[in-house]
């Protein structure tokens, strides 16, 4: 008697129980804590907050733990929670010009007002596995100095004073910013929605697309005008109070790419911008985002759209790793009835093929 798919309910329960067991690992080894994940795997937490679109270190750490370290699964957990949260409103735009900077570099000028600040970076480390780190290593305390009183204007603002770079579009205070998690996305999409999509996009996907643009698929020669990491204040305009109420600081990484633009009949040649912004320390993400933001401006800047990285429908429809992984992995679900239908068709076609004596070269030529 056929019983193949019966008992699914019990099987699911047991599978989840086994998953919980495997997640815990060797029970003689202490359980990893959320503080450990948040403090010591902090870049993983940053990525989950960025692509999960939710600034909450504790929940991101919980998601990473629950997902056994699978980043996309952790991002998915955070997104599913975020989707149920009520929206009170939108914050005021954050001012990265007033960021309390912990790291700030520019590849366009040797020295800049406020100076170059390396901060905590993998850059210039030699990628040699460090056996000391395996256990019990106590690192030296960091070198400190008095905070510099000098202001740290954004490099693009310095260029902007001479009109060498296009101005950032002025925010329209009355216009609401698009939100693709609340309104269905349509094409062509404007830059606010594109940037939101890119901010949530899979880091690896953006990295590959940005890389492809550097290798000539939609080339527009970029310079890293500035990358800065630090804390910015988030403020919310409270209608009741009549003024902007500070909500607290968030850590962000911002990247401004400076790109060539040849100008047009109506506009003088000037540099153009590509923009990247993410929660936490997410340099690879913001740099990739800035490259792709710029390539996606092809339509606006009158450039020919020839490469995948310039094609907004292609990029925006495939950048979301939660969507992508769901649809790729849904192939694990049963497809018996469709497959049966295909089997029926294929058997019929093969029968007809054999009956027609398809080996005859004349018949093939006739087709």
């Amino acid at each position, binding site marked *: 008697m056929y019983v193949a798919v019966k008992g699914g309910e019990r099987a699911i329960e047991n599978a989840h129980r086994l998953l919980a067991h495997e997640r815990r690992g060797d029970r003689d080894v202490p359980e990893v804590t959320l503080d450990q994940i948040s403090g010591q795997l902090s870049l993983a937490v940053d990525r989950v907050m960025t692509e999960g679109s939710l600034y909450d270190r*504790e929940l991101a750490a919980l998601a990473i733990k629950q997902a056994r370290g699978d980043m996309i699964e952790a991002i998915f957990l955070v997104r599913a929670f975020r989707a149920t949260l009520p929206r009170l409103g939108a914050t005021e735009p954050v001012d990265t010009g007033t960021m309390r900077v912990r790291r700030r570099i520019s590849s366009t000028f040797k020295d800049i007002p406020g100076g170059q600040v390396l901060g905590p970076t993998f850059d210039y480390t030699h990628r040699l596995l460090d056996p000391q780190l395996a256990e019990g290593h106590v690192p030296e305390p960091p070198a400190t100095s008095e905070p510099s009183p000098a202001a740290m204007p954004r490099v693009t603002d310095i260029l902007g004073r001479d009109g060498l770079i296009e101005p950032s579009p002025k925010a329209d205070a009355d216009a609401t910013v698009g939100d693709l998690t609340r309104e269905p996305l349509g094409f062509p999409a404007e830059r606010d929605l594109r940037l939101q999509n890119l901010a949530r996009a899979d880091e690896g996907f953006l990295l590959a697309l940005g890389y492809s643009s550097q290798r000539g698929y939609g080339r527009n020669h970029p310079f890293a005008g500035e990358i800065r990491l630090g804390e910015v204040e988030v403020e919310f305009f409270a209608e009741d109070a009549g003024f902007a109420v500070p909500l607290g600081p968030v850590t962000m990484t911002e990247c401004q790419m400076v790109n060539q633009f040849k100008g047009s009949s109506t506009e003088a040649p000037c540099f153009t911008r590509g923009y990247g912004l993410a929660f936490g320390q997410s340099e690879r993400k913001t740099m990739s985002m800035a490259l792709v933001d710029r390539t996606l401006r092809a339509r606006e800047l009158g450039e020919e759209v020839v490469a995948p990285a310039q094609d907004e429908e292609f990029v925006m429809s495939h950048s979301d790793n939660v*969507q992508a992984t769901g649809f790729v992995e849904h192939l694990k679900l049963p497809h018996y009835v469709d497959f049966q239908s295909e089997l029926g068709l294929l058997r019929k076609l093969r029968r007809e093929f054999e009956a027609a004596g398809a080996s005859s070269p004349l018949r093939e030529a006739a087709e």
Partner: protein
Amino acid sequence: MNVPAYNFAYLDEQTKRMIRRAILKAIAIPGYQVPFASREMPMPYGWGTGGVQVTAAILGPADVLKVIDQGSDDTTNAISIRKFFAKTAGVATTTSTADATVIQTRHRIPEAPLHAGQVLVYQVPIPEPLRFLEPRETETRRMHALGEYGLMHVKLYEDIARFGHIATSYAYPVKVNARYVMDPSPTPKFDNPKMDNCPALQLFGAGREKRIYAIPPHTSVVSLDFKDHPFTRYRFDAPCALCGAEDSYLDEIVTDDRGGRMFVCSDTDYCGTRQASGHRGTESAAPHKELPLG
């Protein structure tokens, strides 16, 4: 920590209202794909999030829910979705097609005829019937607006020229209310005629692609074809090995590695109901034995 608390049927009321508006618009324009702001659901995209959102938006406390996948109430994803609503909405669930008020389905339409007052909610992976002919949404929306379906007919014609048949066996395109060409979701084309003039409301939810569409009760649904190559259903030519049904869509079960096969109803409720009323197939109530091929 922000401990989550969830609303009836999981979604918040604002989201449900937004989805209901999309559903109403979809009913008003049969076969037209209405964009909606699909949410991240607690199950993966591609696993029924569109259907789940539609069901969550229409479900009331008095509803009786049935969930099937591949026609079966017992496949793992059907169980998972049924449990989700039993938990988040506390609604009664059933496996009986006749008793259900809302039926969420993936890949099948139940064999038992649906009746007025029922809602059939389809899970849809790719809502756009023209997608594999034209990948761009901007283009396909224009084609729908203009009723420009020549490309689809050319595709079907090319199938006939190459294979002698229309080589689409599931997700077979239909024209709804003589206006919009629609993807019936990946149901085998065997099920297409059941959509036509159906007394139940048919709703389609595509979560990842953020589209909802609908076939109101008693709407004409015509499978695309040509006069000299009329639409035909496909069904493996055998009675169900368990209930003897000659009219149901069959699953092919591989019973060994020497070519052994058996064919049983894909709709488990239909098969079980028939067996309960005394219908028997060659394999029922008997230990498994080898069946000759076909």
